[in-house]
Structure formats: C-alpha cells, structure tokens
C-alpha cells in the first residue's frame, strides 16, 4: 500500500485530521477514526472501496485531477479559500451558515522505491478559523465604516449627505438589500433622509400609522425582525411588504433629551439573523448621526445668539456715542460761562472759590465725556492715529504734567527714571500722552495719601517698556485679567471722591494696541500696590532725534468781526460774550436764514457756524454764503460734535476753512483768528 498500518496509525495519533490513503487505482486503503466519526462510514466499510464510488462528487467538482497529479508524483495543495471543502461533511458548528465543514487538504504521493504506490490525503477542519477570519474581517469593515462615518460627521457635512453615506456603509458592511435613515418631523410625520435599495417610486414621507416600523424608536434597544410576516407589529408596514422585506434591524437615532431624531434601518429579502456585533455597529452609526444632528442644531443656535450679541453690542456702542455727543452740548455753554467768570475781575473770595470749583468740576465732567466718546469711537473703529516721531521723555513729561495736580493734592512721592539717551517712538503724541496720563492718574487715585509712584522707561531690544508702579491698593488676582474691561472697577471701599466710569484703562489698552503694543497689569495682591507695563515698538536708536517743529505763535490779533450761528442760544451767547471780552466784535444768529441776513448786513470776517441747525443746516448756509459775492470772502469755521475724516471732508467740500469739535476752546478759536490776517476793506 505504500503506507504501513503502523505509520498510518502514528500519523493518525499525532494530529487531529482526516487521513485517507489509496492505492494506485484510487481504491481506499486507509481510513482513520476522524473520517469514520464525521462521515458515519466505518473503516471496514470504506477500505476496499473506490474513492470516487464513495464520493462521486469529487469527480463532478473536478478534484479527480489532483489525485491523478499525486499519482505522477506531484503534491496537490488545496486551500479552503479556493475550494471551500473537499469531502462533503457536516459543519461542526451547528446553526451556522455555511452548513458544511470548511476544509483544506494536501494530497501527497505515497512513494515505494522509485514508484508512486498510491496517495495520502490529509484533510483539516478549518471551519472555526474561517468563521473567526470572517468575523475579524467584518469587524475591520465595521471599524473602517465607523471611522469613515465619524470623519464625515466631524467634517460638518449636511445631515442628509451624512445619512446617505451612513446607509451605504450600513448596507455594504452588513450585506443587506435595503437600508434607510428616517427623520421624525415636529408634526409627527416621518421623512426619508436617505435610502438604498428601495425602488425609485418609493414614498419618502410617512405617517407613523402607515410606517409601523417607526414604532421601533419607542424602544431603547434595537428592534430585530427575523420574519416580517410573523411579527404583528411590522407585517402591516406596506413599504417593507412591497419590497419583499423578510428580516430587518432597526435602531433609534437619538435626538435632544428624550426625543428621537429618527431611525436607522437595514433589511434583507432573505431571512437572516443579525449578530450582536451588527446591532452595535448599526447603533454606533445611529449615534453618530444623532450627534452630528445635535451639533448642527447647536451651531445654528450659537449663530443666532452671536448675532443677537453683536446687535446688542452695536446698540450699546451707538448709545454711548449718542450719549457722549448729547452730553457735550450743554457742557459747551457751561464751560464758556466758567471762562467768562474767570476772566471777570472780582475781589469776592467766595466768587473766586466757587469759580475755581466750577472750573474743576466742568473740566472733570468734560474729561469723563471725552473718555466716554473716545472709547465708543475706538470701539467702532472711528479713531485714526496721527503718528509722528516723538521722544519718549517729552511724552512722559506731558503725562506727568497732566497728573501732577492730583499727585500733589494727594501728596504722593513721584520718582521718574528715564534713560539718558532719547528713545524715539512712532506714535500719536496726544494719544500716547493720554495713555501715560491715564495710568499716572489711576496710580494717584488708587494710592492712599502720601504714597509712592514710580515711572520708568527702558529700551528692550526693538521695544520700549514703560512702567507705572504705585504703592496703592493693589489688585486682587481675579481682577488682573478683568481690569482692562469696560466699566470694570475695583470694588474696594476707598475714598471714591475721584470717582470715574471705569473707562480709563479700557482706553489705555485699546490705544496701546492701536500702536501695536501691549499693556499688562501685575500686583502682589490687595494692599500691595500695582504695576502697569506698556510695551511699544521703538524706532532704531540711530534715528535722528528730531521731531516735528511746532509753529511759532502768531502775533496778537486785533479786534475782528465775528458771527456766531448756533441754535443753542446759551452756547451762542456765552461764546459771544467770551469773544467780546477778549476784544472782538461779535453778533449771533440762531438759524440759517437769520445767519444769512446778519452776514449780509454786517459782513463778518469769520463765521462760527454750527452744522446741526434746524431747517437749513450749516452746510447749506455755507454753500449760500460761498455763492454770494458779498459774503464769499468770510472765513467759515464749522462747529460740530463730529471730528472724523469723513466729517472734515464734508465741511471742507461745503466751503468751510476750519473744522472745530465742540465744546470749543477759546484758545483754539483765538489761534484761528490770529492766523488769518485782516483784509483791506474788512476794517
């Protein structure tokens, strides 16, 4: 036989496999216990029979050639993947598909001397391995599908587009004929978001009563339909019946709170079981859809909230601008009145004292209004910096002068440390002075009487670093990050006589940032002082230390003929009185037509013209004066609460020579009057 019984027995003993030996005529000569148990054919019934008589389908399935191949000396290797099985034996795993044992085999020649005496077939049961590999492959596919789905969800795709991808993944991975994603609408109607496998004429909108499968979302566990016709709940679902669905798996897509967003379903025509892995996979996809849908909702809600907040912010900024502008109007005549009182000679100490008090309070109120107007304009991007080369020490000196009255009143000790070599900065000198002045004022305000203030500046590579430090009330740690916020103030109980709106530091921060710098606050805690450090870009040290030269003061003006036009009678009259005091001839008018009449009658050299006049505004008055040969030569000075480039352009186009922002300053007006020489014929 080519294989002795002893050797056959040893081979049988060392492995769990089927052993089938034949002679050259392919008559069975060896049949081990493994084969006997699985075929139900005992060895004594198999040995002596022709192989192809016992297993005729070996011939019909084309396996005869492998045995013939072995008979000429060549081994045949038969893999399960190509052949599935060699002998038709029942699967060792009951209740599974396929129902046959999966096998791999080798058919080797049995050699006796130089001749092939027969064949030996070694048969292995690889059913479990095949199931494990299929299971692993399925898990890999599911994982890949989940990863792909999660990426799609995170990419912020449209929900319907996401569902289309999901149902495809679901159907392909599970191997189903149909899949769908349905969404429940607020009115209880169900709409199809995506589907695969359904006929093109399928309904896409369902009432719950028509689509009984939608009842599955009432359950938290997946609903498995093994046989549609035997399941009362689903056998009236016309959509499933029409398409010949027999089995299905339906999971709920979670919505907000206890609500369901919809359902995800996968169905087959043939009856089948769904594995726990497949439940989990479908539910995972449903959860991804639910999360993506919730994210879309939240994004939409956030957008609405952001728009509402932006609108509220805009309204706040506009209100502040309007408030500051309106507060300026009554300030103008009050300031004028104070200046008149100051200019009026008196020996009454009470009058002198009260005049000084009025002056201080008006100045303070003007500062508050200016700050309020400033912050609203900066917030709305309506402030332009007038940058030039400035020497830092000059700015520090001006800032110190601004804060000196408060510093001296509070008896603080002020130490200034500046580098000997001048540091040049490209900055708006007025605004930079405002920054440092605000910081010094704050230091003075928030330090107990007799405290210390230190101002220092150094060059640090390409920057200049200015520090204002005090021995004052300090800042709590939680305030450090908020101290620059608008309307935020330290809540500690101190002498609040200086008061304030909590705007100064906000202005400082915004102005510093407009100069491409930074400002930060540090403090060791309440009662331990504070330090504010401003860092700004500095110009290279080799830059020439020259700044824009100031023009020399013009000679003292003679008496000029003026016309003041303002519908605010107090403002007009008080300004007129002030200018009369300094020697000018002044007339007033309170509307456009009156202004034109006065101008025609008295031919003023200068017209201070309010823009915001009723009926005929200042622009129109200006244009009519320019059109009038008798009035054309008058210098027009616009008085307005608005000082932006756009506003100045408009006044210039209307024929104004100057644009002053209310409240007017006597010095400003006097400077203009001095700048324009008297013309022949104007006397």
């Amino acid at each position: 036989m080519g294989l002795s019984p002893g050797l056959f027995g040893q081979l049988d003993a060392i492995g769990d496999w089927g052993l089938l030996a034949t002679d050259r005529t392919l008559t069975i000569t060896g049949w081990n216990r493994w084969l006997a148990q699985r075929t139900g054919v005992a060895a004594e019934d198999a040995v002596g029979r022709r192989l192809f008589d016992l297993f005729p389908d070996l011939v019909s399935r084309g396996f005869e050639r492998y045995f013939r191949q072995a008979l000429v000396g060549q081994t045949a290797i038969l893999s399960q993947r190509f052949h599935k099985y060699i002998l038709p034996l029942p699967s060792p795993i009951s209740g599974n598909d396929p129902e046959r044992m999966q096998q791999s085999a080798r058919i080797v020649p049995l050699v006796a001397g130089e001749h092939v005496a027969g064949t030996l077939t070694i048969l292995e049961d690889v059913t479990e391995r095949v199931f494990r590999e299929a299971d692993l492959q399925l898990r890999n596919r599911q994982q890949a599908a989940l990863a792909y789905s999660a990426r799609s969800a995170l990419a912020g795709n449209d929900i319907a587009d996401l569902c289309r991808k999901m149902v495809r993944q679901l159907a392909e991975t599970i191997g189903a004929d149909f899949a769908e994603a349905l969404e429940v609408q607020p009115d209880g109607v169900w709409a199809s978001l995506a589907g695969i496998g359904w006929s093109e004429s399928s309904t896409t909108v369902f009432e719950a009563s028509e689509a009984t499968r939608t009842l599955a979302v009432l359950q938290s566990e997946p609903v498995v339909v093994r046989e549609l016709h035997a399941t009362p709940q689903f056998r009236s679902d016309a959509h499933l019946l029409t398409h010949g669905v027999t089995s299905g798996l339906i999971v709920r897509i979670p919505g907000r709170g206890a609500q369901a967003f919809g359902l995800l379903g996968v169905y087959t025509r043939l009856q089948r079981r769904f594995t726990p892995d497949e439940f989990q996979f479908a539910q995972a996809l449903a959860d991804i859809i639910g999360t993506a849908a919730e994210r879309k909702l939240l994004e939409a809600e956030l957008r609405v909230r952001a728009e509402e907040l932006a609108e509220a912010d805009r309204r706040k900024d506009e209100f502040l601008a309007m408030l500051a502008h309106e507060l300026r109007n009554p300030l103008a005549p009050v300031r004028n009145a104070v200046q008149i009182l100051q200019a009026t000679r008196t020996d009454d100490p009470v009058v002198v004292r009260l005049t000084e008090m009025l002056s201080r309070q008006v100045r303070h109120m003007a500062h508050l209004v200016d700050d309020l107007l400033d912050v609203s304009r900066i917030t709305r991007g309506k402030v332009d910096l007038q940058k030039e080369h400035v020497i830092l020490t000059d700015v520090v000196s001006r800032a110190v002068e601004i804060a000196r009255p408060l510093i001296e009143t509070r008896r603080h000790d002020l130490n200034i440390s500046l580098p000997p070599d001048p540091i040049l900065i490209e900055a708006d000198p007025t605004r930079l002075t405002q920054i440092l002045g605000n910081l010094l004022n704050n230091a003075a305000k928030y330090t107990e009487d007799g405290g210390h203030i230190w101002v220092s500046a150094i060059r640090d590579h390409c920057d200049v670093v200015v520090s204002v430090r005090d021995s004052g009330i300090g800042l709590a740690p939680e305030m450090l990050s908020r101290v620059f916020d608008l309307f935020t103030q330290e809540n500690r109980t101190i002498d609040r006589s200086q008061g304030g709106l909590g705007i100064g530091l906000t202005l400082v921060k915004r102005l510093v940032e407009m100069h491409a710098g930074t400002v930060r606050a540090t403090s060791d805690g309440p009662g331990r002082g504070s330090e504010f450090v401003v860092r700004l870009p500095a110009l290279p040290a080799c830059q020439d230390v020259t700044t824009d030269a100031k023009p020399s003061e013009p000679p003292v003006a003679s008496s000029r003929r003026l016309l003041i036009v303002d519908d605010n009678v107090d403002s007009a009259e008080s300004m007129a009185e002030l200018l009369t005091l300094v020697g000018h001839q002044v007339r007033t008018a309170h509307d456009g037509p009156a202004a034109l009449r006065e101008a025609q009658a008295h031919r003023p050299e200068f017209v201070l013209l309010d823009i915001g006049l009723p009926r005929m505004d200042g622009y129109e008055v200006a244009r009519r004066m320019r059109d009038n040969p008798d009035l054309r030569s008058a210098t027009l000075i616009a008085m307005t609460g608005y000082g932006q480039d756009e506003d100045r352009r408009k006044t210039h186009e209307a024929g104004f020579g100057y644009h002053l922002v209310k409240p007017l300053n006597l010095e400003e007006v006097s400077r203009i009057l001095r700048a324009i020489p008297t013309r022949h014929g104007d006397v």
Partner: protein
Amino acid sequence: MTLSDSQKDAVTELVNIAFSRTAAALSELTGNRVELTVPEVSAHPIGDLLPALGKFVHGEVATVHQIFGGPVSGDAFLLLDIEGAARLVSLLAEAGAPTTQMGASAREVLGEVGNILLNACLGVFGDLLEVRFTFAVPRLHLDSLGSMLDSLLIGVDEIRHALLIGARFRVKASEVTGCMVLVLGVTSLDMFVAAIEDWAERATHS
C-alpha cells in the same frame, strides 16, 4: 556562470509554457482572468543572488519552497515580498482589503499558488530533460531575504548556482511581481543548460 541570449530566450519560452498552465489553473480556480509573464531571466552564483533578487523582492519575503530530486536535483522557490504576497492573495481570493498580516487562510492560498506554479515549471523542465522529478511537499516560509538565502548554503559542500526567473502576475488590472528561483548544483546545472540548448536547436530547425 551566465546565460547567453539564446539560452535566456529558450528558458523564457519554456517557462512561459509552464506559466500559461499556471495562469489557466488559477483562472479556473478564481473565476478571474489571470495572466503570468516572464519579465526577466538570469543566472547567478548563489553568493551573488541577493543583489539580483533585489529587483523583484525587498525586505520580508514569502517563499514557497519545493525540494525536488531525481537525476537533476535542487530547490525551487517562488518568492514574493510580503506586501506583494498579501496583495496577490487579496486579488486571487477576494480577501477584502489586503493587509500585510498573512493569516492562515492567506498562507494556504499562497502555498497552493506556489505549488501550482512550481509543479508546472518543474513538470515542463522534467519533460525537457526527459526525467521524472520527485517532489517534496512544498513549504511556505515568511522570513527575511537574507535568512532565506543563508538557509540555502547551510550544509552544502558543492558550488551552487541559481536560475532567476521573474514572475509578473496580472489580475484585475493589478500587477504583482515576484520571482522563481531554481537552485542547482554545478552538475545538474550543466545538464539543464545542455538540455536547453538541444531543445532550442530542435525548435529552431523544426
């Protein structure tokens, strides 16, 4: 030793016959059209084989190794690098996304493919030499190329030469390239080359 151009052509033609049979068998097994071609043929002393193999395989290799005996004896190998082997298995057995993890099923498939190919080639050569080979059971190894070559030299006294035959599989518009290697002793190789020359002579004059 080197092969002359005519010898190379003769070997190529013979191997093509074997590869056609292999391709036909694989096509029938898989239900997909499989093509198998010979891109290159060369001969090398065994010590010079490593750089020559570098044209076809790299790094870790899957090797189907069959020892054959008879009047002419030696070792026959089908070599594919791991990535190529996994891809070939995936293409032939529709095993889904190919991975470089060669599971048991994938190894079986590769063993069967190698067995079909080596049997076909050795069968053609046996017909050529008019000898009957004896074949050992082919074995699959996953190893580094260097380790595989080292194993050829262990316990061998005579000088051995290798006939290197490229093998390009084409399935579903994808290509996988490997190579077949016949390792023979000097005597066997001389017999083989002489038989090739005779066959080529006969083929030319017929």
